[in-house]
């Protein structure tokens, strides 16, 4: 790669500039454009000239201006001080930018990703004389009360520890250790750099099976369409169908160790919302403010387009870095469509031949490259550990029509598809994940380990005996519920023609049960303190309650008990409200018993009992 060299601009058109005079410039190299040294990246090289995309507004720059090649790729700084912070698409610290430059983002401002003025307390994990290899844990820094940052030997570094500081306070760019090898001596600091477009390496052959669930506390996700740690999910939907809220819910409540939330080309006020809300929310497991495990990347829709393209790589590189430390990381991308559009826009300016809807032909390749960076793996270095990156990408298809290039390409590489449904959103049923169209390729392997991992939660450990009993029926509940919802969809389409009252009672009961499932289980309020996060235990109980009610009611209907009697039971609305009752599982358990008693009473008045007939 070239060392720093200066060339001359020959053309400026929006975010694309053409320059010449640097002979050995290469693709992906970072350039500095004009007097203000705006950062750009080389996207095309020909014999005589080269083209770069610039991450900032290029007004006032013209031919004859200078362009400097840096000899480096687009990199990001990695180290303590990422968590609990917010960055823009090229990983500039926005808080710092605000303090130095005020409310509006000026161009040409250089700000580091990691603060240089902060001290971190480092504790060594290795001693002088140890042989080290990439990924070895050199020592630790308590980055936030929730996350212990492991300082790693950077990729490509091997040798003997000539020196290491046992403990002490250091800034990120101060040396804490010296490694010596055949090439000489190398200082190691708390931070390292990585070119964002290249996946960080992990142990060879270290990819692990995707059989651990990422628990999100969202019923329709965990129970019906679960996502594995290390998996990838796509959540496409038109505007107003709740993509952002769903992503935010997962960012808040999932059992990931670290969450990287990337707002790519989205609304400024929404990022502000996250910044206002997250510090006040507590992690349901550790009881600490959620921001302590969160990294925010905000590239709002009116920031330069090219930086949007960079932001998703920044996000996934940071996620991989925490994975390498041995953590389960969840990466939210809102929205990948804005990234694809940035690709399209730049491709257009490069005058490349467009294929479908103006997108460049390489769009599916880029999508694949991105989603393949998800995974659960054994990471490099000692001690041996595993980490994962789970990618959840929102897609904003034009007109809400899923038959478009990005949605199609994404579905090819994502294992989970949460289809958002405008009909549900219109009637304010959230999350508006359509339970008939969605799928999860992970649900098979996940189901068995799902219940185990739920059961191993410390708070449920005490009741393990009971838990095993309940959760053993889980797979059955799930398929029974899906079957009912499917049947109901069929019956509804008939009811739409002949009216509900013309249906036989057994079909009306299916509709009633589907309504209970919809209101009492699938619909979940992101804003209700009890309902926002639904523990796995409660999810299973709620499902069991509704299905038991259905099973018992079937027996009544068979014995010709009119459906209206069942529908008018005072327990019916209570079942729909049980999810938000502060009594939680205890309340559900007692409601279950109560409704059973009521149904039994009706049965008795018709001269039979439910229990008796349970085997027939």
């Amino acid at each position, binding site marked *: 790669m070239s060392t720093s060299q200066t060339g001359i601009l020959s053309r400026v058109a929006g975010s694309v500039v053409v320059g010449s005079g640097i002979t050995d410039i290469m693709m992906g190299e970072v350039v500095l454009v004009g007097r203000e040294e705006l950062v750009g990246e080389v996207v095309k090289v020909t014999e005589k000239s080269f083209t770069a995309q610039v991450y900032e507004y290029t*007004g006032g720059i013209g031919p004859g201006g200078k362009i400097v090649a840096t000899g480096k790729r687009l990199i990001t700084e990695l180290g303590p001080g990422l968590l609990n912070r917010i960055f823009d698409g090229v990983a500039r610290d926005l808080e710092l930018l605000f303090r130095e430059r005020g*409310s509006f983002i000026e161009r040409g401002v250089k700000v580091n990703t990691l603060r240089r003025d902060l001290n971190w307390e480092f504790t060594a994990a290795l001693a002088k004389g140890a042989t080290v290899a990439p990924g070895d844990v050199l020592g630790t820094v308590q980055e936030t009360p929730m996350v212990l940052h492991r300082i790693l030997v950077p990729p490509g570094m091997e040798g003997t520890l000539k020196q290491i500081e046992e403990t002490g306070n250091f800034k990120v760019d101060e040396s804490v250790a010296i490694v010596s090898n055949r090439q000489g001596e190398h200082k190691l600091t708390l931070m390292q750099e990585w070119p964002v477009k290249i996946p960080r390496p992990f142990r060879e052959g270290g990819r692990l099976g995707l059989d651990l669930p990422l628990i999100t506390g969202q019923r329709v996700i965990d129970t019906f369409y679960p996502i594995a740690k290390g998996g990838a999910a796509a959540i496409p939907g038109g505007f107003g169908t709740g993509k952002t809220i769903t992503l935010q819910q997962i960012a808040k409540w999932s059992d990931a160790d670290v969450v990287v939330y990337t707002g790519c080309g989205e609304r400024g006020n929404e990022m*502000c919302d996250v910044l206002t809300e997250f510090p006040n929310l507590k992690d349901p497991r550790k009881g600490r403010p959620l921001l302590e495990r969160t990294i925010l990347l905000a590239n*709002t*829709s009116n920031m330069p387009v090219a930086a949007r393209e960079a932001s998703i790589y920044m996000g996934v590189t940071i996620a991989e870095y925490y994975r390498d430390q041995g953590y389960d990381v969840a990466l939210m991308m809102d929205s990948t469509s804005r990234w694809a559009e940035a690709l399209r826009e730049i491709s*257009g300016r490069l005058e490349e031949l467009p294929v479908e809807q103006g997108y460049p032909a390489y769009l599916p390749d880029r999508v694949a490259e991105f989603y393949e960076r998800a995974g659960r793996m054994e990471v490099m270095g000692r001690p041996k550990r595993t980490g994962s990156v789970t990618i959840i990408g929102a897609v904003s298809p*034009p007109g809400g029509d899923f038959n478009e290039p990005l949605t199609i390409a994404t579905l090819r590489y994502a294992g989970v598809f949460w289809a958002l449904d405008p009909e549900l959103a219109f009637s304010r049923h959230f999350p508006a994940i359509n339970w008939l169209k969605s799928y999860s390729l992970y649900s098979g392997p996940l189901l068995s380990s799902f219940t185990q991992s739920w059961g191993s939660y410390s708070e449920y450990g005490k009741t393990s005996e009971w838990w095993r009993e309940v959760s053993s029926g889980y797979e059955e509940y799930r398929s029974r519920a899906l079957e009912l919802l499917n049947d109901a969809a069929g019956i509804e389409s008939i009811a739409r023609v002949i009216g509900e009252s013309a249906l036989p009672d057994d079909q009306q009961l299916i509709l009633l049960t589907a309504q209970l499932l919809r209101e009492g289980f699938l619909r979940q309020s992101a804003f209700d303190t009890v309902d926002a996060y639904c523990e796995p235990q409660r999810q299973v109980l709620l499902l069991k309650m509704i299905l038991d009610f259905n099973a018992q009611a079937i027996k009544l209907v068979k014995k010709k008990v009119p459906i209206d009697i069942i529908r008018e039971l005072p327990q019916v609305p209570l079942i729909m409200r049980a999810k938000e009752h502060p009594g939680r599982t205890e309340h559900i358990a007692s409601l279950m018993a109560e409704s059973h008693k009521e149904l039994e009473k009706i049965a008795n008045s018709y001269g039979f009992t439910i229990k008796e007939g349970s085997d027939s």
Partner: protein
Amino acid sequence: MFVKDVGDASYDEIVKIRGSDGIDRMGRVLDAGNELTVVQVLGSTSDLQADVALKFTGSTFKIPVSDQVLGRMFNGLYRPVDGLPPVYSEDLRETDGKPINPVARSQPNNFIQTGVSGIDTMLSLVRGQKLPIFSESGLPHNRLAAQIARQASVKGEKEEFALVFAAIGLKRDDASFFVDQFRNSGAIERSVVILNLAEDAAVERLLTPRIALTVAEYLAFDMQLHVLVILDDMTLYCEALREMSAAKEEVPGRAGYPGYLYSDLATIYERAGILKGRKGSLTQMPILTMPGGDIRHPIPDLTGYITEGQVFLDRDLYQRGVYPPINVLPSLSRLMRSGIGISRTREDHQDVADQLYDTYSRGVRARDLAKIVGQVGLNERERRFLEFSEVFEKRFVNQGDFESRSIEESLDRAWDLLKMVPETELVRIHEKFMEKYHPLHRAQKMVE
């Protein structure tokens, strides 16, 4: 316009153009190249020949701003059209604006009472929000926008909104409707009007909203005023953009609009909000007419992805005599939740809104069913929902041009309607609110 051998033109620079007719025009550089420079002419290109004289000014497009802009009227290039001299100020601002640092934003949470029940109750507007009206030709979007401009107020505050109105390719009578409205209500003193009329050059439309927002940002963030910006009609803006894109021979995207329509619209819509440490706010109400009433058309579609919700006007409702014809189902306000509730509007507000959505959507479904099986084919429950939807439209959404309802009034009206539905169906309202606000419970309490 393509120019050879300029040498030192720079991107987005402003160019002065004098044709053989002696008229001065303005242009800006779209593509600055060594051999060829592409200049976009702002204004009419008729009578221009290949022998024009160009002067490259060396600076991007800037406008002077000062407190003198209030009460003034300009054309789409910021030239006065009210007979007064141009604004003089040394404070020059680039009209393209700069992105607001998300960290510098403060969360919009001041409820704006528009006095319109459908909006206040179900898609509450808050200060600093961008909430467009999705309409069609022939629907009363201008009446509604004028009514909102007239009635908008923040609870417990006397200060009125400063208005910035940008007419983008509007017919003369539509534009004068607004100006007359402002005059009659006395709002003209605290408004700025930027007029690009239907007969004006399409290319000026690209500048009009940006000038309006630059002025609005000045009023909001320098003069600390609460500003409401009405951009009418954004569809014509997009068409002008398409025209320019075609002229530049760019690869067209959906419906011929350029692939960067989203990014371009974002640089307009994102210029709304509240900044930390400043008193003012910038609220946007863009209006767009959906071609063919199609919400999936690229313009409403991309707008909806950027703005914080939308107010959807429905021809069907209008023809049934409902004004304002707001169809609440596809409408939405994303910032509603942070602006309403116990200390802002009323504790039951969100639940009532959720319940209205649910009940009304079931009513609409029942209505569809009734079209097939007839009213007699409905069961008792469905009939109640159907009846609810009718009354909801007639007595809740429907209201007069000069009728301003307080939020409490609107919520009470809502409860009055909800009592038509069996209590067991009102599952979206918390029990504690049912007891406190449901008319039957209230009546019972009074008896006790």
